[in-house]
């Protein structure tokens, strides 16, 4: 266990060792010898801004003034404290009588987010909640036990999910990246990204001349789709004889929307 980080803050210009060790004993109930506290004098609300959050284990406050530390300072104390860390507000012996008459002490500490608030003979003691900032819990109701589900007795069968390994359960790698419409990746049966539509828009690119007087260098175009190359401009059209006008069905004459 590393050295505990203890912070002592005071509005005084200086504090006596005995006052510090006294307060620490009250906080830690141990000797002060082991501890090397960080001491901030002439502390104001801003004094703690240089300290990192959740960096301090415990805080001792030795303020001489009648006033209780401000909201801002309390907030900063809370910030730098580790969760679960304790704070001791040691009031000055001369003003303690007056200060303890203040009924709002607990209130202010609660607002600043502290728990376990106690009035002591020397002042106040409290703690920062021990869960980390950002953890949430159901405020509306206590954590419910999920209702038990009535099961049919299929106890004579093994659980088939146990037959699958980690590897099996991992989402399969889809053919990567290339969303270009081509031969390799196909649109899903229920395509929602539009790829299926793109696959349909294979351009015909035929001119009227090509329809009226079709020619074919390879000689295969007129034989029908079964013999055409993937880049054939006549793909999808019926068979034709070279030089004779191609009989188009209604499909191709309708314009693209």
């Amino acid at each position, binding site marked *: 266990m590393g050295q505990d980080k203890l912070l002592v803050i005071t509005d005084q210009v200086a504090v006596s060792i005995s006052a510090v060790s006294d307060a620490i004993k009250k906080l830690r109930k141990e000797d002060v010898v082991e501890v090397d506290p960080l001491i901030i004098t002439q502390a104001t609300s801003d004094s703690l801004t240089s300290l990192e959050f959740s960096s301090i284990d415990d805080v001792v406050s030795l303020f001489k003034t009648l006033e209780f530390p401000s909201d801002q300072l309390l907030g900063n104390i809370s910030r730098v404290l580790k969760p679960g860390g304790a704070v001791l507000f040691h009031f000055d012996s001369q003003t303690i009588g007056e200060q303890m008459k203040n009924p709002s002490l607990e209130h202010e500490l609660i607002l600043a987010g502290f728990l376990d608030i106690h009035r002591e003979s020397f002042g106040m003691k409290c703690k920062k909640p021990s869960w980390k900032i950002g953890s949430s819990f159901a405020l509306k109701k206590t954590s419910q036990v999920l*209702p038990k589900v009535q099961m049919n007795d299929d106890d*004579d069968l093994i659980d088939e999910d146990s*037959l699958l390994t980690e590897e*099996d359960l991992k*989402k399969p790698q889809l053919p990567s990246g290339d969303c270009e419409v081509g031969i*390799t990746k196909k649109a899903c049966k229920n395509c929602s990204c539009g790829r299926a539509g793109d*696959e*349909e828009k294979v351009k015909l690119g035929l001119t009227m001349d090509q329809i009226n007087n079709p020619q074919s260098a390879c000689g295969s175009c007129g034989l029908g789709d*079964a013999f055409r190359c993937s880049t054939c401009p006549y793909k*999808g059209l019926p068979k034709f004889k070279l030089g004779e006008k191609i009989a188009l069905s209604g499909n191709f004459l309708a314009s693209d929307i």
Partner: protein
Amino acid sequence: MCLTEKKRENQLLILYASQTGNAMDAAERFGREAERRGCPSISVLSMDEFDPSELPNKEAVILVVSTTGQGDNPDSMKGFWRFLLQKNLTEDWLKGVNYAVFGLGDSSYQKYNFVAKKLDKRFSSLGATPIIERGLGDDQHPSGYEGALDPWMSSLWSILYQRNPRLLPNAITPDDTLMDQPKVQVIYHDTEEGLSPMTTSTDFNYLEMQLEKAHSMNPAKYSGKNRPDCFLKLTKNNLLSQVESGKDVRHFEFEAVSCVSEAIDYDVGDILEVLPGQSPEALDAFMQRCNLNPESYITVQARDNENRGFQKPSSPVKLKSFIELTMDVASASPRRYFFEVMSFFATAEHEKERLQYFASPEGRDDLYQYNQKERRTVLEVLEDFPSVQMPFEWLVQLVPPLKTRAFSISSSNSAHPNQVHLTISLVSWTTPYKRKRTGLCSSWLAGLDPNQRVLIPAWISKGCLPPPPPSLPLILVGPGTGCAPFHGFVEERAIQSKSVTTAPVVFFFGCRNEEDDFLYRDFWLSHLQKDGVLSEEKGGGFYVAFSREQPHKVYVQHKMREQSSKIWSLLSQGAAVYVAGSANKMPADVLSALEEIVSNETGVPKEAASTWIRTLERAGKYHVEAWS
């Protein structure tokens, strides 16, 4: 393990579980390839034709399985799988059995090839010896599952040959030139024996007979489907969507004309399977192209009875009827083997070459572009290769069987005695070559006129949505045509509520916008009224996600999140969740939303919520009917 029975040696068993015919094709291909390699005894069977307790006696088993739905087993595998999952099967139950698994799946699904993966693992954990690592066929591969099948099969044969040369004596030099024999034989008759020329029977009696005869002649393809449960007459064909919307969604009403039982009988959530008609023009064109006489009478039998069991001879059926009722000539695409057989019957050299190319491994990609991708029909293929004259026997064997199409029933039988209703969206698309195509069944139905007096053979079957008892609270999610079964659920519950107290129903619907495709709008709203099944007073709810009414997309899962506490309240009362619709992603999105809801409402972490929902599934409280 039975010690007295000696393993039958040198026998290859090929078992398949097929949903749409792909696994069956692959299995039959294995059978042919084994035959070419001289295997002395081959059996190719669907898993529901085989008794799994016989497995320990087998020397070598190849299993070909498809993945269907959301990573589920095909129907024909359910019994077989249940048997295999028994806890009391020991880890040496399959000792000495050599096996190999090939799966057909699609890697764009989360549960890619789960069926094959689980089967492979189970077999090996029962002591069977893998011949080769499992093969996984992938629809996303350029040539589909055959991309993985070809190399896998090569390795399979060579390893099998090494282990037992007598199993595949010709493995080194398979006989590729051997022309296979067709599996059926066709006998022509002069007249329809046993029936007077002037038939006195009514329309549906005649149709029924023709259908029964035709199906019984090829039981391999129609197991369990010989006799329709009923014949239906169309009484209503109403467009539900707006014409301008570009969608064509219809409400169909049918009356049962004749049933196996007294009147038509079904539960809400059930499935109606319909045998579509084929266009007379297409049929005529096919018969002309193949030089067939539509008026002749035929009987069709299996050439060898070894695998199919004894078939009792059937009286002749009209050729035209046989084709019309059992052979899909203008919709389904033929398989690679069709092209291979065609090549043997092509007289023009360039056609022969092209067909051989298509049938070869090198030509697989081009075949895929030309045939499967374009959804080329048998008729189109035959017209593209005019020199091919295929004997009718081969056509009977290789033309894809005319399949029934299944739809979720959208009516409640109690609300509409002797009727059944459907909600169907017209399937239409443009092919890569820019040809416009429509779905065979949906376009045929859409074009039907109630006055036409067409009789439709139909079967009722159970789907994935069991009918809920009236006391079960329901959370229903059904965007688009997914609302169909829930239309029946609501009708049914409304009737039940007249005599017993019914539990709340909450329904999440989705569509593009209120104008175009808000299917059954008035119906849902009427049940939202005071004391209706969906009303507030009854603890119910009805929520619609209009996806295109605002710049950002709003889907059913968004609406569900808005009703988080209501959903949780129902779930903690023991509600069941039903999800139906025609999208791949939707069920996963809905599941995700539910996990979030459970997690948020109870404060438990997402993983715990996810596990809890899985137990809902196993307890029969979470059902998904998804179609593509």
